[in-house]
């Protein structure tokens, strides 16, 4: 039984923005798989809800004429997993969300909700970072755009104000065409779990040369992060086992995992290093590279 005081159903982005403005205590709810847990635990601040679950404007996956991929934040993980557009162009995103929760959760939970929840373990966060995604945020003063790197502000905090709504996630053609990617979620079990560490690697190769590398992690820092130092150490280099070792050694300077009862910093670092090596290797292979 949930202590919900008021529940407003929005039919459009505009209506949702109006409802948020009219109800200053209200929060957004989409799939509900995070919000309902907070309500279950009796957490304050979630008893007035603006429900955007059925807003059609938020539910789309499209490939634009210029090659841009646009994903509606209201898409469920199941829609992402099953989308031919995603599977053809950025299968790494489907892989990243395929391990979230169980089938019931994936049928309800949305990708927008996942990143707006802003937790360090956000499963789609590392892949979207590695894909250089750009988010569109709708607000009372119109739309604004933001690179995903500037989206995660801190644990549970993202760059969407209380009266705004995440309206689209976009990936430019240049950021995925010709790239190969790999995602690995390291958790204590294969389903129904949050990541101990998640790693996304996206790269472009020219034979045995690494032309570009974008390496991102979840749970390796207070928010999902990119690894600029490790990336810089590898870009333009010959692909080899030695290079993978170099990335694995360098990545330690990019991450700041912490010890909690869930896992020690030392174990997380061990996993981070191992996944750097393995994920980059797989991404290189998928990009058609040689050398490993």
């Amino acid at each position: 039984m949930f202590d919900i005081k008021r529940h407003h159903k929005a039919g459009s982005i505009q209506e949702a923005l109006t409802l948020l403005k009219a109800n200053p205590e209200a929060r957004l709810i989409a799939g509900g798989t995070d919000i309902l847990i907070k309500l279950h635990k009796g957490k304050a601040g979630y008893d007035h809800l603006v429900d955007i679950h059925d807003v059609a404007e938020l539910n789309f996956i499209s490939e634009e004429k210029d090659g841009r991929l646009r994903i509606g934040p209201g898409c469920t993980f199941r829609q992402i997993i099953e989308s031919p557009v995603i599977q053809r162009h950025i299968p790494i995103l489907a892989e990243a969300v395929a391990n979230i929760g169980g089938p019931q959760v994936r049928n309800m939970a949305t990708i927008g909700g996942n990143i707006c929840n802003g937790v360090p373990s956000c499963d789609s966060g590392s892949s979207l970072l590695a894909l250089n995604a750009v988010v569109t945020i709708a607000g009372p003063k119109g739309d604004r755009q933001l690179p995903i790197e500037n989206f995660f502000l801190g644990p549970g905090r993202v760059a969407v104000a209380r009266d705004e709504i995440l309206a689209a996630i976009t990936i430019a053609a240049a950021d995925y065409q010709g790239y190969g990617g790999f995602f690995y979620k390291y958790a204590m079990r294969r389903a129904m779990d949050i990541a101990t560490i998640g790693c996304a690697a996206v790269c472009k190769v020219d034979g045995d040369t690494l032309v570009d590398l974008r390496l991102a992690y979840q749970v390796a820092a207070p928010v999902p992060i990119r690894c600029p130092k490790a990336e810089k150490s590898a870009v333009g280099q010959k692909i080899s086992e030695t290079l993978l070792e170099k990335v694995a050694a360098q990545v330690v300077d990019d991450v700041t995992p912490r010890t909690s009862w869930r896992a020690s910093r030392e174990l997380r670092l061990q996993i981070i290093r191992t996944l750097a090596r393995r994920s980059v290797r797989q991404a290189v292979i998928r990009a058609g590279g040689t050398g490993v």
Partner: protein
Amino acid sequence: MTIGKSVRRVDAIAKVTGKARYTDDFFMPGMLHAKYLRSTIAHGVVTRIDTDRAKALPGVVAVFTFEDVPPHKFATAGHPYALDPDHKDVEDRLLLTRHVRYWGDEIAVVVAENNLALEKALQCIDVEYEAYDPMTTAKEALAPDARQIHAGAPNLVAESGYAVGTRIDDALDEADEVLTTEYRTQLVQHCHIENHVTYAYMDDFDHIVIVSSTQIPHIARRIVGEALDIPCGRIRVIKPYIGGGFGNKQDVVLEPMAAFLTLKLDGRPVKIHLAREEGMIGTRIRHPFDIRVRAGVMKDGTLHALDIDALSNTGAYASHGHSVAGAAGAKTRALYPRTAMRYHARTVYANIPASGAMRAYGAPQVLFAVDCMIEEAARKIGMDSVAFRLKNIIRQGDIDPLTHKPYSTCGLTECLTKGRELIQWDQKRADRPREQTGPVRRGLGVACFSYASGTYPVCLEIAGARIILNQDASVHVQVGATEIGQGMDTVVAQMTAETLGVAVEQVHVVSTQDTDVTPFDTGAYASRQAYVTSNAVFRAAIELKDKILKHADSMTGITADRLDLIDGRVVYAVDAGHTVLPLQAVALDAYYDKVRGGQLTAEVSYKTTTNAPCFGCTFVEVKVDIPLCQVTIKEIYNVHDSGVILNPVLAQGQVQGGAAMGIAAALYEDLQVDPDSGRIYNNNLLDYKFPTIMDIPDIGCAFVETVEPSSGYGNKALGEPPIISPPPAIRNAVWDATGVKVDELPLSPHNLFKCFRRAGLI
């Protein structure tokens, strides 16, 4: 013939379609809900409690605290009543407590019209404590200056042991090699799907009716009477379908409180349904053990001496207490009966959730240590792991060194041989390089166990069966044994059909136990029910068959000794093809003839005074990813000697479920305690890493069928045993793969990381 056939579960369709009703599916008009206020410290006393604000909230009916409950203490363990006062369970519980002994202890209870009002009311109760330092381990609680967790009683709950064969120190002196290792097992919770749920009401002025998800309705009835000081004849316990228990419902947890509340509230129905987060701390868990094992081994591979010293942590309340450590030691003795052995166990209170019964009752803890040591001994003298076990395990004809009685049936040698073939042990050993390198390595492991088919002679073993011939020639069976998901009702139908001579479809087993009408039985635990109930059902079915044939005799003049009942037809004993009377005609005549006959029924209450040992083993091949500190099971087989297998598909289900639970304990599950505060970190199914279907491999199973003479149908225990041997087998396989010996459960990435690092592998 239905014994040995995979008859479909009698409750399968009802359960998978959702028709079957469980305790929470029943509603009554005016039903109230109750919830405990749980302590936010692990050790201390409540110095002030104020419930006024909570009582004033709308929807709140009543709030009771430790000041309002009966003052006498009671025991909760689901054991039969002990006539011997020295054998009574420890009486250390009150319905609510001022003295807090674990994080989540029950200090007050709120009754309200709905769950939301309950939650709000709980937040409005003000509590102040005087906190003491919590002692979360048995070793801390045993320290000389440790505060008594139960004032007036030492923290050492009990201590016991036995020794057989040569004096242990002499035997160790004689051995060529002596090994000593300390092992540790973790806190594990049952995680049955259906949480604890109970409601109670009164429909007259004398009797309390309790509907509960319990494994032990008849015992629950007695304990509620003891807790409330009410004669148990005024208590009625009804047990509907239940969604699993694994021993956690072989304890009386909510029933006394529900009965107390309805009594206080003029008989209104009051339901208590624990949330998962509450159930994982506020019911029972598996005792964590620290076990030191010393083994003496001869160069020829003879296991000469085994010295086991177990320290069991029973947590805040005794519950089953020392019985668990005692039983575990007793059931392990049968495994190596020709070895000099000493078993010593202590059980200690500590400020963690109370431990109680859990599947295999201490044997998984003790067998983990024993089998890990067996592996060490085999490796020490350079002998193949399977060959070493085959040389030393029990063989048919061995004598129990303590009771000096022969073990009845034993197929363990055949189990090991079969398992070795299934996993292709010798071939895989031969194919693999001696020293593996690289990040991912493979290993083979084996472990074996012994167990028992009940609790005799420590406790009594009583079973009851009533069989009624209906007027349509179907039969109704009532047994005191409870169906808790293991398939009891189905095998009772098979037993009845087999002996009575009717089709299994004609047998309806009444699944609900109701202590007002159900024959007496102590309930589902100790893997006892199919074994001891077989003796009651067999005798009742013989008796009813005799009555049916006598009635046919009175109808036909053909003497009963010349008749038989086969497939629902009364036939000539010498000519089964010739129907004398259909059973239907006999039934109608018995009911409705104006003079002869009557309702044909048979009822037997039978005490089994034997206890058949059962055996088995696990073979496993693992893949260990060293840099990721992860173990993957490639192949696993459980092979069991459980006597005659009554229903192969159900038996396979038991084995796969039990082995999966063993895998869970080996690799995943660990209820984590903050040593400073006593707080449990992960009392929910997200953070408690109960494996999912994605994590459990295909589990192979096989049976070596011996025919046990002391049971009605040749069967022995199977319910609990499959959980026992997977953890040591997996540990042994990880050792085989990596050269790293892990002596602490679980083999989770956290523990493997520490061990691999210590070994220099990462």
